[in-house]
C-alpha cells in the first residue's frame, strides 16, 4: 500500500479531467468556427498493478484527443457543395443573360414587328417623305435593339472571362495553401496522427476548393492529401501545387477554358470533365447557354435582314433605280466589315481555311458547327452545337450553308463555323436616304412596299431542310423568349434541388462533426464534477499522508 498511489491516482484524475475541461472549453470556443470538428478526450484506464489482494487500478490516462470526423460525410458534403455552386453560378449568369431577351414594347420582337408595320404605311403613301423617314427610323430601332442585346452578351462574356480568371487565381491560392499544410502535417505528425486544428484547416481549404471545382482527393501514407481535378489532373501532389490556368479557347479566342501545364507544355482541360464547382458552372454557361443565346439572336438577325434586303432589291426607289441593301449585308464576304464565318482552331497545322457562304438564310439554324475530318466516313463532317447527327459537307445546304474548299484542308485540323453567332451585333441600317427606299414595283408605285409589309406574315426564320415551316420574325422572338425563360426556370429548379441536397449533406456532416453547445454544457458539468471529485481524492490522499506523517512522528 502506498499513499503515493492514491496521490498519483488523484493527480492523474485531476489532470485527465482538466484536459477534458480544456477540450470542452475549446469546443465551446470554436463552436461557430466553420469546419471545426469537435474534439473529444479519449480517456483510458491506466494499467493496473497486481497485488496480493487482486489487481488495483492506477488511475486514468488521457489516451488521445480525438477529432470527430466522418470522412465519408465530409466528402459527400463537399461534392454536394460543388454541384450547388455550379448550379448557382449558372443560374446567376442565366438570369443576367435573360435580360437580353426583353418581352413587350421594349423588346426586339416588337421593334421588328413595328418596322414591318411601317411598310404598310409606306404602301399607303409611297411618295410621302415623312412616312419614308419613319421607315428608316424604325429600321434604326431594330438595329439598335439587336446591337444592345449583342453588347449585353459581350459584357456577360467578358464577365465570365474575368470570373474564370479570378476563380482560377483563387484555386491556385488554395492549392498553394493545401500544399503548405500538407507539408506541415507531414512534418509535425506524431504517433497520434496530425494536430487536429491542422486537419481542420486542411479540410476547410478542401471545402473552399470544392466550391470552385469538383475535386477528387487521395490520402497518402504520409498523411498528405493529393487533389485531382477534371480528367485526373493533379492539382496538389503532397507538398507541391501545380497551377491551374485560364486561357483563351483555341477555337474561339473570345471564350475561355481551363488548362494546366505539364511536362509537354500547356494542356487544355476538356470542359466535359469539369463536373462541378463554380468554374464548371461558368464554363457550362459560356459554352452552352451563352452560345445558344447568341445563335438565337443571330438566326433572327440573319433571317430578317436577308429577307428584307432580297425583297427590297426587287423594287424601285423614287428615282426608278433598283433598291440597294436596306440593312448592312454582313453575310456578303466582299463587303468591308463583313462577319467572319469560319474560325481556325489555334492548334491547326495548316493555315488553309474553308469558305463558308450562306445559301438560304431562312434555313439557318440557331447553332454553331464544329468541322472536323471523320475517318470512319472518310469525309469532313459538321457537328452542330445543338447536338443531333453530324452533317456531311454536301448536306450543308439543309441548314442553309454552302461550304467549299474542304479538299485543300489538312485532315488533322479543326474549324469552328459560326454563320450566325455574332450576327446580331452587325445589324445596322445601310440605306441612308428616304428617297432610296424601293417602295415601287414595276407595275405599281407601292407594289414592293406591299411585298415588304407581307414579310411580317412569312416565315423568315428556321425553316426545315425542305423549306417548310419556320416562324415569322415576331413568332421567332416569342419562341426565343420562351426558350431562354425555360432554361432559366430549369436551371433555377436544378439549383434549388442541388442547394437543398447540399444543405442536407452539410447538416448530416455537422451533425456528426459539429459542436452542440447543450452537449458541451452537459459535458462541462460532467467534467467539472469529476474534477471536483478528483480534487477531493487528492485532498483525502493528502490528509492520509498527513495522518501517516503524524503517526510516524513520535
Amino acid at each position, binding site marked *: 500500500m502506498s499513499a503515493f498511489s492514491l496521490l498519483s491516482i488523484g493527480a492523474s484524475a485531476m489532470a485527465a479531467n482538466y484536459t477534458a475541461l480544456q477540450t470542452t472549453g475549446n469546443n465551446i470556443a470554436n463552436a*461557430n*468556427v466553420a469546419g*471545426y470538428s469537435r474534439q473529444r478526450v479519449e480517456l483510458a484506464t491506466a494499467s493496473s498493478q497486481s497485488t496480493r489482494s487482486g489487481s488495483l487500478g492506477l488511475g486514468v490516462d488521457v489516451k488521445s484527443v480525438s477529432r470527430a470526423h466522418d470522412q465519408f460525410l465530409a466528402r459527400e458534403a463537399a461534392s454536394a457543395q460543388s454541384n450547388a455552386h455550379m448550379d448557382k453560378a449558372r443560374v446567376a449568369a442565366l438570369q443576367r443573360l*435573360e435580360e437580353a431577351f426583353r*418581352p*413587350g*414594347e421594349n*423588346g426586339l*420582337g*416588337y421593334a421588328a*414587328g*413595328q418596322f414591318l*408595320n*411601317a*411598310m*404598310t*404605311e409606306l*404602301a*399607303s*403613301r409611297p*411618295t*410621302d417623305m415623312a412616312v419614308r423617314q419613319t421607315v428608316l427610323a424604325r429600321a434604326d430601332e431594330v438595329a439598335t435593339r439587336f446591337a444592345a442585346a449583342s453588347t449585353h452578351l459581350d459584357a456577360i462574356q467578358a464577365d465570365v472571362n474575368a470570373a474564370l480568371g479570378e476563380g482560377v487565381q483563387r484555386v491556385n491560392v488554395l492549392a498553394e495553401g493545401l500544399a503548405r499544410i500538407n507539408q506541415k502535417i507531414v512534418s509535425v505528425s506524431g504517433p497520434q496522427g496530425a494536430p487536429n486544428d491542422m486537419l481542420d484547416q486542411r479540410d476547410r481549404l478542401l471545402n473552399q476548393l470544392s466550391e470552385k471545382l469538383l475535386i477528387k482527393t487521395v490520402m497518402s501514407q504520409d498523411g498528405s492529401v493529393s487533389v485531382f481535378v477534371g480528367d485526373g489532373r493533379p492539382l496538389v501532389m503532397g507538398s507541391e501545387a501545380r497551377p491551374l490556368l485560364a486561357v483563351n479557347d483555341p477555337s474561339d479566342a473570345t471564350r475561355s477554358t481551363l488548362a494546366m501545364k505539364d511536362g509537354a507544355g500547356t494542356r487544355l482541360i476538356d470542359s466535359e470533365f469539369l463536373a462541378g464547382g463554380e468554374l464548371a458552372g461558368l464554363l457550362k454557361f459560356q459554352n452552352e447557354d451563352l452560345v445558344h443565346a447568341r445563335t438565337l439572336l443571330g438566326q433572327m438577325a440573319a433571317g430578317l435582314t436577308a429577307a428584307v434586303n432580297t425583297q427590297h432589291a426587287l423594287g424601285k426607289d423614287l428615282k426608278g433605280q433598283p433598291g440597294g441593301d436596306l440593312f448592312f449585308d454582313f453575310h456578303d464576304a466582299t463587303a468591308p466589315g463583313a462577319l467572319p464565318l469560319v474560325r481556325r482552331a489555334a492548334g491547326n497545322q495548316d493555315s488553309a481555311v474553308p469558305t463558308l457562304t450562306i445559301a438560304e438564310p431562312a434555313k439557318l439554324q440557331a447553332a454553331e458547327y464544329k468541322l472536323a475530318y471523320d475517318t470512319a466516313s472518310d469525309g469532313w463532317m459538321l457537328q452542330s452545337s445543338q447536338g443531333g447527327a453530324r452533317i456531311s459537307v454536301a448536306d450543308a445546304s439543309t441548314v442553309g450553308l454552302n461550304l467549299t474548299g474542304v479538299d485543300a484542308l489538312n485532315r488533322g485540323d479543326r474549324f469552328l463555323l459560326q454563320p450566325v453567332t455574332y450576327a446580331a451585333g452587325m445589324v445596322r441600317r445601310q440605306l441612308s436616304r428616304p428617297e432610296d427606299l424601293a417602295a415601287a414595283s414595276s407595275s*405599281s*408605285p*407601292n407594289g414592293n412596299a*406591299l411585298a415588304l*409589309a407581307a414579310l*411580317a406574315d412569312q416565315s423568315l426564320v428556321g425553316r426545315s431542310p425542305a423549306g417548310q415551316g419556320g416562324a415569322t420574325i*415576331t*413568332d421567332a*422572338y*416569342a*419562341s426565343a*423568349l*420562351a*426558350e*431562354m*425563360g*425555360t*432554361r*432559366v*426556370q430549369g436551371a*433555377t429548379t436544378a439549383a434549388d434541388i442541388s442547394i437543398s441536397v447540399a*444543405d442536407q449533406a*452539410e*447538416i448530416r456532416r*455537422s*451533425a*456528426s*462533426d*459539429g*459542436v*452542440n*453547445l*447543450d*452537449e458541451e*454544457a*452537459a459535458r*462541462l*458539468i460532467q467534467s467539472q464534477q469529476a474534477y471536483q471529485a478528483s480534487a477531493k481524492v487528492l485532498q483525502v490522499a493528502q490528509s492520509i499522508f498527513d495522518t501517516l506523517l503524524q503517526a510516524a512522528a513520535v
Partner: protein
Amino acid sequence: MRISTASQFDRSVDLIQRRQQALQASHEQLASGKRIARASDDPTQAASAERALAREARLESHQRVLESSRQVMAQSESALGSAVDIMQRIRELVVQAGNAAGGDANRKVIADELRGLRQQLLGVANQQDGNGNYLFAGQGGAAAPFVQVSEGVEFRGTAGSLASALGSAAPMSVDAEQTWMQAPTGNGVFKAAYALDPTAPGSHQTQAWVDTGRVTDPASLTGESYSVTFTGDASAGYSFTITRTTGAGAPAAETARPYVSGQPIAFEGMEVTISGTPSPGRDTFEITPSTRDLSVFGVLDGLSRDLGASGRSGAQLAQTVQDGLRDLDSVMGSLMTMRSRVGWVMEQADGLDRRFSDGRLAAQSQRAAAEDVDMAKAITEFQGHQTSYDAALKAYSMVQRLSLFEYIR
C-alpha cells in the same frame, strides 16, 4: 440525432431568408401589377403575351391604313358626286339643244356653256386631297393626271388603283382611268354611227340618221363590223345593203332590202332604225363592236363642237343629239358606278374597322390575362407570405434563446 449548434443557426437564418425572398417576390408582383416581369417567371405565358402584342401592333397599323383609305374614299366620293351633278346639267342642256326650234345661235350659246361646264369637270378630275395628292391619278403621282393637249384631254396618270396592305377592302385610290376614260361606246354592245365626218372636206349634209340600236338575240351576235349602204332613188324607193366588213370571208354582203324610214333593220341578233332620206352612194352607216375607250372629255368636246357648228341639217342635228345623249349616259353611268362602288367600299370599311377594334381588344385581353397579376390572388399570397415570415422570425426568437447554459448558473 445530433444537431450542431452552428448548423442550427445557419439553417434558421437560411429559412428566414427564404421566407423573406418569397415575401419580396410577392411584393414585387403586387407593386408592378405584372405576374411576368421576365420570361422565366412563366415562359409559355410570356410567349403568348408577346404574340398577342405583335398581333395588336399589327392591327393598330391596319387601322391606320384603313383610316387613310376612308379619307381618300370619302373625298373621291364627294368629287364624283360633284361630277355627276355637272353631268346632269350638261344632259339638260343637250336635250335643250335637241329642240329644233332653237336655231344655230341658240345652240352656239349652249355649246359655250357646255365648254364652261367641261372645264369645271376637268377641275374636279384634277382635284387634290389635303396632302397635295391627286384623287384621280390612278396610283398616285406628282402632276395633274388630266392634261389638256391639242386633241383634247389626255390621261397622264397610272392605270388601276393603288392597293393598300388590306387589299381591295381598303384601296388607297380610285381607278381613275376606268372612271373617266373607259366608258363603253355605243349601246354597250355595238355602236351605230354615220360613217363620214361632217367636217371633212367633200362631205355633204346627210338627211338620214341612225338610232342607238339594240340587241334582239344575244346568241346570234357575231361581234363583227358592218356597213349599211343604199341604192335606189326617191321615186323607185331606196334599198339598203348590209355588208359584213370584218371576219372570215369579209366583205360579205347581204341581199338588198327595201328601205323604210323609221323601220327597224334586224340582222345577226342586232336591230337598228334608220330614219330620214338616205343619199345612195354617199351615205354609209357603220356598226362596229363597242370599245371601252369613251372619255368624258372626248364626249363633251365632240358635243360642244358639233352643237356649235352652223349649217347642219336636221338629220345631222338629230344624230348629234342622239349620239350625245347616248354617250353622256354611258360616261355618266361610268361615274355613277364608280361612285356607288366607293360608297360600298366605305361601308365595308366600317365593318372592317369594327373587326379590327374587336381584334385589338381581344389581343389586349389575352396579353393582360397572360401578364397581369390577379390582384385578389396576389394580395392573398402576399399576406400568406407575410404571415409565414412573421412566424419564422418568432420561431427563431423563441428557439434560439433555449440553451442549457441558461439553466446552469
